[in-house]
């Protein structure tokens, strides 16, 4: 790493005129991304196993006239779409914050044990408490994700050196192994639990009603606000611990707040729709290639583009083979992975 100290992030270097143009370009891009998100949300409302013309979808959306179409749109497609937007934003932001925090481009809720924490708690809930509904899983999943994040974080910060990337990832891998062993044992002993768990474990937006949305949204909204506020401190963190400290940054505080944001975002979203691979890893990775390493751009872009991928995948899962649905977790993986692999091949890797 270079020892040149610059208070502004490395990408902002260059003549002022060029910098202004770059900022305008990125701002314009963000507006386009928002437009894309709105568009895909409309498509998600419009497309489904019952075909409703776009015109009536639009009018029924604003005037709930109690017709059958209105019930479908308002009770099923609207909560599903909104949940997709919220969870997508949460996953993208969580991935971006995690990667910045650990300074590890591979950081991802799956790798750091958070998904498995949620899964272990859901398995326990099914096996030992007789909970059978998605709504019932939410709190357990959330608790599990939170506990897993705390354990990984405490383990990663043991000693005085602080949480370095490889420590955190190794801690995550260790915890993941233990949790997977636990999950495997419970599932093998108890076939009924296995039968329920296998459907939660693919990750799906279907069947999630407005009540799930209401339950998880406070956590996700707080997580989003916290994450966005951390953009500047995360930029300082990217300069390295010593430099950051020399610049007067509160490294410890940034780490703790970042960990809280990640826990809120991952816990709530995994609780709501099950483990979704890949979005938190792939979108921020792609975004960094697009706009560079400045977190003030990476975070908002990740927040807007992740739901585009999530909702888009959900729509594709619905139209591929109607009336059956392909769960969104499967589509995101199959859609995200090739793009991600292509990016890895084509460009110089966007390292942190």
């Amino acid at each position, binding site marked *: 790493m270079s020892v040149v100290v610059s208070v502004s992030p490395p990408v902002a270097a260059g003549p002022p005129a060029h910098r202004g143009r770059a900022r305008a370009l990125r701002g314009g891009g963000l507006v386009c991304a928002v437009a894309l998100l709105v568009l895909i949300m409309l498509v998600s409302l419009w497309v489904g196993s019952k075909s409703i013309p776009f015109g009536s979808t639009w009018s029924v959306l604003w005037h709930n006239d109690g017709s059958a179409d209105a019930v479908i749109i308002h009770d099923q497609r609207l909560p599903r779409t909104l949940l997709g937007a919220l969870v997508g934003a949460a996953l993208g932001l969580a991935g971006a914050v995690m990667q910045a925090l650990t300074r590890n481009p591979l950081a991802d809720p799956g790798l750091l044990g958070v998904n498995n924490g949620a899964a272990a708690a859901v398995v326990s809930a099914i096996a030992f408490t007789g909970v059978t509904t998605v709504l019932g899983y939410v709190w357990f999943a959330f608790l599990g994700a939170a506990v897993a994040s705390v354990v990984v974080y405490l383990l990663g910060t043991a000693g005085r050196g602080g949480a370095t990337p490889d420590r955190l990832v190794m801690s995550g891998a260790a915890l993941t*192994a233990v949790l997977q*062993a636990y999950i495997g044992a419970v599932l093998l002993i108890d076939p009924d639990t296995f039968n329920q768990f296998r459907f939660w474990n693919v990750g799906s937006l279907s069947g999630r009603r407005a009540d799930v949305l209401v339950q998880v949204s406070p956590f996700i909204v707080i997580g989003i606000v916290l994450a966005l506020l951390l953009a500047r401190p995360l930029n300082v963190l990217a300069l390295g611990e010593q430099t950051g400290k020399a610049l007067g940054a509160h490294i410890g505080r940034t780490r703790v707040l970042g960990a809280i944001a990640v826990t809120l975002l991952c816990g709530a979203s995994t609780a709501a729709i099950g483990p979704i691979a890949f979005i938190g890893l792939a979108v921020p990775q792609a975004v960094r290639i697009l706009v560079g390493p400045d977190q003030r751009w990476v975070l908002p872009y990740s927040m807007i583009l992740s739901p585009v991928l999530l909702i888009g995948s959900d729509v594709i899962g619905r139209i591929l083979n109607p009336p059956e649905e392909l769960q969104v977790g499967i589509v995101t993986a199959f859609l995200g*992975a090739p793009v991600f692999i292509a990016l890895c091949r084509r460009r110089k890797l966007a390292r942190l």
Partner: protein
Amino acid sequence: MTAIDERPVRVRRVSLRVTPRALVVGIVLAVVLFVLSAVSMTTGDYPLSVLDVVKTLFGFGDAGTEFIVTTLRLPRLLLAILVGAALAVSGGVLQSLSGNPLGSPDVIGFTEGSATGALLVIVLAHGGSGEVALGALVGGVLTALAVGLLAYRRGLQGFRMILVGIGVAAMLTAANSYLITRASLQDAYAAQAWLVGGLNGRGWDEIWPVAIAVVVLLPLAFGYGRRLALLEMGDDSAKGLGVPVERSRAVLLAVAVTLCAVATAATGPIAFVALAAPQLAKRLARSAKPALVSSALMGALLLVASDLVTRLVFGEEGLPVGIATGAIGGLYLMWLLSNQWRRNRG
């Protein structure tokens, strides 16, 4: 620090550079493995004395003891040792090539590929254990090929390979979860049982392929171990020192992939051995270099110990050993990491 400690050890014309500490660690691991094997052979539903076991092994035991030793316990022990060593060396080579402790076959998709192959056989073709093993082997090797080809771009770069591997693994994980939702409960359950990985019900049929792979490939891997250390210094330095970079890497990759695929085909994916054993061996030896021989011993040790513990706690045909390796390996790594960090940086 290691460079200073290093002393060449010459046995006739073979020269090995080992640190005294690495040598001690290797010897200690081998001794512990031997003791554990003895314990494993003598304990169970029918306790035997060491003398009984030895006599039986040389063909002087009675029929009952002979059945217990040669049909039940010996194949199980051998399979544990072979699979443990194969997974550990596979993990050690891949971690070293990718320059990342996460570059183990569990993370970069090979294990997932084996699982997909096995699941396809179980769920779609309702195949028996031999076909499942074949499916796993084909799945693992095809996945490795795909990851290698997708990551290839004017040479294989370790970091890119991990990224591509994670991408492929994500896809395969999704496919596996999907296959499990599509299957009947019975098939899904069989698939889940295979996914945990275990030694229950395996016999000599499963051992031969692994044994052949290990006997051929482990010496090859050990022989390339020194080149592995040079490759870790970077391609340019390695080239400067006369290492044929691309060919060495290709050979090492092929060895690692085959070891992992064969082991997984025999027992199902046994969690964590490939990830943990090389790390544990490296830390015990306090070596910056890949320590493949100690890794192999450590892998075998981990698997034999885990199998012993599972059998003692849950009975002969109880929980599969994959659960114990995950739990024990994970907890031990957690303890080791926090302990070491507290000492070194504290």
